[in-house]
């Protein structure tokens, strides 16, 4: 009896809100249980798994070429980079050295993927804050990149352009021209993006000083990608553990020290400039050669374990393969950036208002399939 009375007291004090699974700003089916005091958030508890498909379990039955296709379905906005992680892991295990041409093309498409992902993020973030117009702008410019992808590999979102050993097929003859056209266009548009939001008083007031994540916390929570770098955590895999053609291009790792929503926003905007710079350095220097190293029809990895990390648009994506020498892995683990980034949400959102939580979530740039896997 006493316990019941105690519970009732608790209930009368705490106000819970279920944000999600269907909610406009959770960007998918994420459910957050908020404990509120008025409008101030006391606790955020994420409930995941609404689109958990157990991709890792599926992988234990699939061949390595099939696994590549499954990775598209996790972080669909950086699908090419996810594909690449698995391919790199398999190539590393088989000790295949892919041709230079493949390296450069993969890098260019990686960066295009990153650009398109950040464009979408920019649009959606504006919409979360109530500026619906940005959503349309973001999608308009993203369309140009998806058109390039469509011409290159036939798909706009889940591309499957990578196979272990190289690429599915060679790039389209128009690829270089269209990419350069896009860069010329987007160079004019990006400053416009920036002025539309970051010069706006309402926007800056809503972003500055909100959802602060210190560097120590970022490392401890394993928050990577632009979110971690905005807190000063130097975690760019492209710099620290360079793969593909990243060691031959000149680019900066964008770091900030503030760690608030505005720093994360700035970080992504600046990253778009860096991505464009990387593409510019490579687009005219695609070496001639094969686009693929022939592999066996059924790939069997030797006994052992491999870990490959890549930098997706959201952070560090890792593939951990344990092989027993079979055609499918014994155990495969995807370390998804969104999963770790989400774990810091509660820490960042405490003491903020509901509107701030929306801002924090949008600057974390969560993709739910990436978290649930």
């Amino acid at each position, binding site marked *: 009896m006493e316990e019941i009375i105690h519970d009732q007291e608790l209930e009368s004090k705490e106000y819970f809100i279920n944000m999600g699974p269907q909610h406009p700003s959770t960007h998918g089916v994420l459910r957050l249980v908020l404990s509120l005091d008025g409008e101030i958030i006391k606790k955020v508890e994420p409930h*995941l*798994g609404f689109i*958990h498909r*157990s991709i*890792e*379990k599926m992988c234990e*039955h699939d061949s390595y070429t099939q696994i590549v296709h499954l990775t598209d379905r996790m972080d669909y906005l950086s699908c090419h980079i996810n594909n690449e992680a698995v391919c790199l892991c398999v190539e*590393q*295990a088989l000790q295949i050295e892919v041709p230079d041409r493949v390296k450069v093309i993969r890098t260019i498409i990686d960066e295009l993927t990153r650009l398109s992902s950040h464009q979408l993020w920019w649009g959606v973030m504006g919409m979360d804050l109530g500026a619906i117009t940005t959503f349309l702008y973001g999608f308009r410019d993203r369309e140009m990149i998806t058109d390039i992808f469509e011409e290159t590999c036939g798909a706009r979102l889940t591309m499957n352009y990578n196979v272990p050993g190289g690429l599915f097929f060679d790039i389209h003859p128009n690829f270089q021209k269209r990419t350069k056209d896009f860069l010329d266009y987007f160079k004019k548009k990006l400053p416009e993006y920036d002025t539309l939001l970051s010069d706006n008083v309402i926007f800056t007031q809503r972003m500055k000083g909100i959802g602060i994540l210190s560097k120590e*916390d970022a*490392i*401890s*929570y*394993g928050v*990577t990608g632009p979110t971690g770098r905005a807190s000063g*955590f*130097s*975690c760019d895999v492209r710099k*620290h553990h360079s793969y593909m053609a990243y060691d031959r291009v000149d680019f900066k790792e964008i770091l900030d020290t503030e760690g608030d929503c505005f720093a994360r926003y700035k970080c992504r905007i600046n990253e778009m400039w860096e991505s464009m710079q990387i593409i510019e350095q490579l687009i005219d220097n695609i070496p001639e050669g094969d686009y693929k190293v022939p592999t066996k029809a059924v790939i069997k990895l030797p006994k*052992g*374990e*491999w*870990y490959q*990390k890549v930098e997706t648009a959201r952070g*560090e994506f*890792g593939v*951990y393969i*344990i092989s027993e020498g079979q055609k499918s892995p*014994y*155990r495969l*683990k995807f*370390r998804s950036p969104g*999963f*770790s980034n*989400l*774990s*810091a949400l509660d*820490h960042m959102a405490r003491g903020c208002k509901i509107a701030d939580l929306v801002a924090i979530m949008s600057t974390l740039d969560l993709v739910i399939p990436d978290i*649930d*896997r």
Partner: protein
Amino acid sequence: MDNEEIKKFVLDRVAEAECTDGVQFLQVTVPSEKILQLASELKSNETTSFDFLFCLTAVDWPDHMEVVYHLKSTKHNHQFVLKGKINTRKNPEIETVCHLWRTGEFHEREAYDLFGIKFLNHPDLRRLLLTDDWEGWPMRKDYEDPINMIEY
């Protein structure tokens, strides 16, 4: 610190550790009881200072369970793989590391959810991805679900 030094560091503290030089990382397997003590030393010691746990997962072997910690030091930029070997598959238990690396909180919940490994002293050990009333541990090799799983 290179692999040899890490190996020495670990062996000094846990004599029964098994070290293998993998293709990429040094892999160190220690019994599950020693994990917490070793992990806190690896994190707090100045020479190692492994402050970034970038991946935590579990592996279900035929006769034992394994919890795999991928560690990196942001200060010294070295990384290695620590494995905690749990000798039973029935009621696997291991000490939590989530007070050392906060990211462990979610990763350990996931490992509990899918493998049924109990992380002792974890502040909030519940199912994460699956529903609360789910039965069994799906990522284990002997898990059977005749409806949803397609056998090849």
